[in-house]
């Protein structure tokens, strides 16, 4: 019971902390607009979105990953570090002091540079790996643009016309960091890792971009704020993902929103898999592959190694943020959004409304991060050529097919309803596929076990061979 209470308290604490962060982001944005110049809130957003939110989430992720993997693996997880503060000296505090000890360890370690390494490129590696992923979040809207005491405050750093293209371009820059790190270390294992990383990231760029084309077609834009859309009201219907495919009539809006996941499930799977491969985390961690080639950062120590690690976590946060805004409606509620926006209280106090929806966005982000952690700690690693096969032979054709089908459907029915129907069918198909394979696997399992009760078979009877055949009939969609 106390454990459940602790967890509920922790969840509530996280939500309130996020809400507090969003609220202060809006209020500081207002102050900047008021006392500096028009559009100054974009500058404070750099501070809040990219430094406060992304960095703090990424830092906490170092602990969250260790704790969550521990829960999945029947362990307690980090709980040894203590703070020497009276009253707290005997509490593990959920392992939070471990973040401090990790940072201290990284900072105080010897900064080792291999003798034959190219010093300049060796030092450039971690910077090039870290900086691009850090800059990615600039185009992701983390909340609605609201009116705070008469000033319009945005919750996005930049809204360039090229929107998502900026994201794809900057994301592909990160490969330089890893391949330079691999090459300049003058280490054969690191070189192998760097080569693997560059091959993997370059081949997934194509699938990554292609999987989003369907979405761009549906919403006729590549700008993230336009893709997220704006809530409608009694007179105009919502735009982007705030639009409803079908909705009930009445003041309280209930219905199926045009979220990316509903109209582009195939695109979602492709995007999520491809961007997972870009983060170089398991099951796509062949560049690291610590039991084979140790990884492209094998020669790095101290904070330079820490930069590679933290850039991985920042990528996780950014990926969750981008996925939330592209496929899960960004900061919009699944229902009741229009009703909420129409409330006089929220129309008057824009920053409260913004805080509410901003919190919704970050909750979605946290859930998507959690999904990534679960995937990370469930699957073994792909082999290098299997990663390439998945990218070129499955994701790329699937993405192409998705583009053509989506294009035709958007052309046929611009209200996106046809796309929604096909999307729901696709979701149902994937779910059914996953369920049936599970049932068949369970049958085969029983067969293998039942076999154990037979009399001792002579010679070449093969245990678990039904499972063999079955495992290969898994569909690629079912595997993800």
């Amino acid at each position, binding site marked *: 019971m106390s454990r459940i209470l602790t967890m509920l308290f922790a969840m509530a604490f996280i939500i309130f902390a996020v809400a507090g962060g969003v609220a202060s982001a809006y209020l500081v944005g207002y102050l900047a607009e008021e006392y500096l110049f028009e559009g100054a809130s974009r500058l404070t957003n750099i501070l809040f979105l990219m430094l406060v939110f992304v960095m703090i989430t990424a830092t906490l992720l170092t602990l969250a990953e260790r704790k969550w993997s521990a829960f999945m*693996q029947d362990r307690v997880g980090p709980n040894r570090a203590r703070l020497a503060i009276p009253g707290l000296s005997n509490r593990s505090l959920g392992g939070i002091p471990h973040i401090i000890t990790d940072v201290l360890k990284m900072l105080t370690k010897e900064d080792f540079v291999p003798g034959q390494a190219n010093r300049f490129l060796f030092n450039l590696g971690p910077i090039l790996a870290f900086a691009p992923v850090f800059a990615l979040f600039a185009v992701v809207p983390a909340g609605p643009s609201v009116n705070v005491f008469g000033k319009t405050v945005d919750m996005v750093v930049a809204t360039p016309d090229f929107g998502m293209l900026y994201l794809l371009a900057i994301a592909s820059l990160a490969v330089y960091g890893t391949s330079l790190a691999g090459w300049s270390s003058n280490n054969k294992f690191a070189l192998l890792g760097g080569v693997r990383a560059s091959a993997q990231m370059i081949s997934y760029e194509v699938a990554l971009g292609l999987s989003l084309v369907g979405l761009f077609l549906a919403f006729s834009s590549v700008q993230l704020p336009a893709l997220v859309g704006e809530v409608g009201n009694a007179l105009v219907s919502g735009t982007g993902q705030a639009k409803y495919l079908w909705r009930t009539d009445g003041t309280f809006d209930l219905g199926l929103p045009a979220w990316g996941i509903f109209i582009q499930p195939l695109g979602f799977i492709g995007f999520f898999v491809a961007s997972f491969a870009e983060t170089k985390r398991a099951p796509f961690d062949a560049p690291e592959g610590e039991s084979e080639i140790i990884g492209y950062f094998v020669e790095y120590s101290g904070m330079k190694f820490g930069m590679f690690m933290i850039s991985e976590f920042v990528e996780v946060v950014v990926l969750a943020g981008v996925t939330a805004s592209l496929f899960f409606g960004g900061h919009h509620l699944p229902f009741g959004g229009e009703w909420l926006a129409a409330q006089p209280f929220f129309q008057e106090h824009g920053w409260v409304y913004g805080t509410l929806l901003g919190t919704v966005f970050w909750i979605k982000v946290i859930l998507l991060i959690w999904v990534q952690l679960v995937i990370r700690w469930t699957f*073994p*690693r792909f082999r290098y050529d299997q990663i390439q096969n998945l990218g070129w032979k499955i994701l790329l054709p699937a993405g192409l097919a998705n583009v053509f089908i989506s294009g035709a459907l958007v052309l046929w029915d611009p209200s996106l309803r046809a796309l929604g129907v096909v999307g729901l069918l696709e979701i149902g198909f994937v779910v059914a596929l996953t369920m049936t394979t599970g049932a068949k696997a369970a049958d085969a399992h029983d067969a293998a076990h039942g076999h154990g009760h037979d009399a001792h078979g002579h010679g070449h009877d*093969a245990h678990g061979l039904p499972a*063999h055949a079955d495992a*290969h009939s*898994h569909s690629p969609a079912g595997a993800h």
Partner: protein
Amino acid sequence: MADSHNTDAQKPHNPDTDGFAHEESELESHFQTKNMVINMGPSHPATHGTVRLKVELEGETIVKIDPEIGFLHRGFQKSCENVTWTQCLPYTDRLNYLSAMMNNFGFLNAVEKLIGLEIPERAQYIRVIGSELHRLTDHLTCVGATGLEMGGFAPFLYGMEARELIQDRVTELTGARLTTSFGRVGGMNRDLPEGWSEKVKKTLDRTEELLLEMDGLLTRNRIFVDRTKGTGVISAEDAIDYGWTGPALRACGVDHDLRKVQPYWVYDRFDFESVVGQHGDNYDRYLVRLEEMRQSIKIIRQALDTIPAGPIIVDDWRIALPPKPEVYGTIEGVMAHFKLVMEGIQVPPGEVYDATEASNGELGWYLVSDGRGRPYKVHVRAPGFPVLSALPHIIQGKMIADLVPTFDTINMIGGEVEQ
């Protein structure tokens, strides 16, 4: 070097510039490539124990691999010649350190065969129970490590939980976690502790649950299947030629289990199956080990249920230490104790080869005695050695990522390979 003398003797051979040295046409010059030689080990995350694999790579493909052993060489066979037969026992712990009891009992069985001794029935049961417990720990480690080194950390830790539980039971039985030195020539030195059977049965229940978890995480995991199925393949003929035994051979489809083929101790009384695979690939080796654990659990359950009462060691003061009251109370007891401790067991002159089914295969012992109370020669046929020697045959021409699961599923243990 030789061809550089033949073609153009003036120029020294230089692999870096030769590609541009063709004077006929610059268009014909090709980019010179060199194969990359990397060292996996002696200290590498994927090496069990300390073994060095010199791997020559062309891209990601293994052109040549050369396993190099000797980093754990301890002179086990020579050391045995300087101590009494009983004192060899602690050395045998360190062979396959994951299943020390099987080494202990295998050695004792060979010595008893050399003497021509039949040990009490209860002792035979205890040996079966101990062996199967350690077969479980060995296979758990192997299967868990296979998952771990392919990036799935969870199955490894589930395996470790089961292994720790079994390790606790082993500690209660023998007094040590790893280096058990359990059993003596002629029987056992300790009986099963009070209430131990019940605890073991509980442990086995939990182990079965954990096996299901590992099974669920790995067996039908698409990535795991892709990585293991069809990789590390060896044909049954090749496996036999290389001298493979145990689960690795059975995975090739050869039904050869010493517990079935030439039953020793009381193995013929239990209902269990010899688990046989078909393809000889990593996936089959993994499945065979997984199923063998279930069979081991079955054997232990039966043995615990049917273990008879009775003595645990032969009543022969030339072989077994006399009971303590006799040592302290009678002159015969003191003398027998003194002679046994100082001179050792007087094994009659002769030689013997005896083998038991250890976790990785046939653990064979070739013992020679000259009747002086110390071994004249001890040679152990470690199952890991032939398995490791076949690694180049299996893996050459395959990808480096295949090396890791292959190296895991053949389960070569440094301690027994290098003795």
